[in-house]
């Protein structure tokens, strides 16, 4: 009986840790096909005022062919990457300082929470007045959005770090800076990565607002311009490109996360 009922499961480490997860990819694909099918059925039914998938696909091809899409992607990507990276890199030390020093928390935190509630659109006039109309204010708006979104998570990560880890480090002679770099950061990696991923979403979602500031190219700019002519296929090309780029960056973050948190016991 034993041989017959043999269960061969690879065990402890989940498959995702190494190699490619083909089953997951296949399901992703299923989801994608289903999504497009639903879109098609809805629009073909005429129920919703959306363009048909083939219209959008052909506009995609046009915009790739004349190089406009590539230019837009490059300028938007540069803005988002810069703003996003600055935002999350600043969020980590600020989150630490807030979690660690009570005075700093009482001083800074209300402002952070206050500005988190303010729509990015409202920041634009101020950004123009202080930073002009070049890349700086655009990057700043994106930076602010991703910073504010991710700082909450980093802060929460810092205050959720298991006290005994910190005690263990202190007993080994660690001072605040070392504790921050070698204990707080690794221990709160899961939180920080939540922050980073939410920050990424905020960065992309703010792109359109940022490109209101005298952008000459960019996916958000293109979308606004297409809105003037109610050019739905172009709007959809921009939206889908934004979504896909964001998704791709999110996937990369996910892989990094897996790498950084192999030490965690997972469900």
């Amino acid at each position, binding site marked *: *009986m034993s041989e017959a009922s043999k269960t061969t499961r690879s065990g402890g480490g989940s498959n995702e840790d190494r190699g490619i997860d083909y089953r997951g990819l296949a399901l992703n694909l299923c989801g994608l096909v289903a999504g497009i099918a639903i879109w098609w059925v809805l629009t073909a039914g005429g129920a919703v005022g959306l363009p048909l998938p083939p219209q959008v696909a052909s506009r995609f091809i046009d915009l790739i062919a004349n190089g406009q899409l590539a230019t837009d992607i490059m300028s938007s990507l540069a803005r988002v990457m810069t703003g996003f990276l600055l935002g999350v890199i600043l969020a980590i030390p600020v989150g630490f300082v807030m979690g660690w020093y009570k005075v700093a928390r009482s001083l800074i935190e209300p402002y952070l929470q206050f500005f988190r509630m303010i729509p990015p659109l409202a920041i634009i006039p101020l950004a123009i007045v202080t930073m002009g109309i070049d890349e700086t204010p655009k990057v700043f708006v994106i930076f602010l959005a991703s910073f504010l979104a991710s700082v909450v998570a980093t802060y929460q990560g810092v205050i959720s770090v298991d006290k005994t880890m910190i005690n263990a480090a202190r007993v080994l002679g660690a001072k605040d800076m070392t504790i921050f770099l070698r204990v707080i950061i690794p221990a709160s990696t899961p939180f920080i990565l939540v922050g980073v991923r939410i920050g990424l979403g905020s960065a992309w979602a703010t792109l359109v607002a940022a490109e209101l500031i005298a952008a000459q190219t960019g996916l958000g700019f293109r979308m606004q311009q297409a809105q003037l002519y109610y050019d739905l296929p172009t709007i959809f090309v921009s939206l889908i490109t934004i979504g896909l780029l964001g998704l791709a960056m999110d996937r990369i973050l996910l892989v990094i996360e897996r790498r950084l948190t192999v030490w965690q016991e997972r469900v």
Partner: protein
Amino acid sequence: MAPKIVFDKVTRRFDLKDNAFVALDRLSLDIADGEFVTVVGPSGCGKSTALNIAAGLLKPSEGTVLVDGKAVEGPGPERGMIFQQYALFPWLTVRQNVEFGLRIKGEEASRRRQIAERFIDLVGLGDFADALPKTLSGGMKQRCAIARAYAVDPSILLMDEPFGALDALTRVQLQDQLLDTWSRERRTVMFITHDVDEAVYLANRVIVMAARPGRLKEIIDVGLPYPRTEEIRLSAEFMSIRNRVWQAVYHQ
């Protein structure tokens, strides 16, 4: 009578970066209904791994574990477990931790409370019933985990060094209590310990395991009568069995 628990050539490997590590190598073992077995062996020899497989928390890489003749598919409330690391729910008080399993069993509130009360008193935490785990000392956490497992009244008890963090007196008291309920209610117990005295004092049979790879080394019948008393503990026979176990564990 069919055995209660059957380990049938159970192998468990863990994938490491480059190779697979064999934590348990073809362990075969029958445990009779109502039997009390203790498991001893050097650190890292696969004791916890075997217990986790019996509990249904870990899948064997090869082989099967049968409980009541049925292959184990997952955990079940008829197999109570005490974890080496306690695994208390930190957001629940001692009482709520102990009531957790009872709530799942569907016991009504008043009965739940009554049962929990009994086991909390049994492990001497009466004054800490409303304390959160973070405010308990190491030994108190362990006792809370014991009360939680006892409360659901499982027919099989899987215990991973349950008395390891207790002081000697509390330990003796809990040993005697365990033997007492076991003999009255005919539970089946699989009990891991590092204390050879404890292993001999409690068991019908002592399972001795060896490391690298983790495997069964020897099974030693204790054959001392129950109830076990302080007298038996000091008897020459006890000493000789104790020495046999020691030899089995540490002899090359």
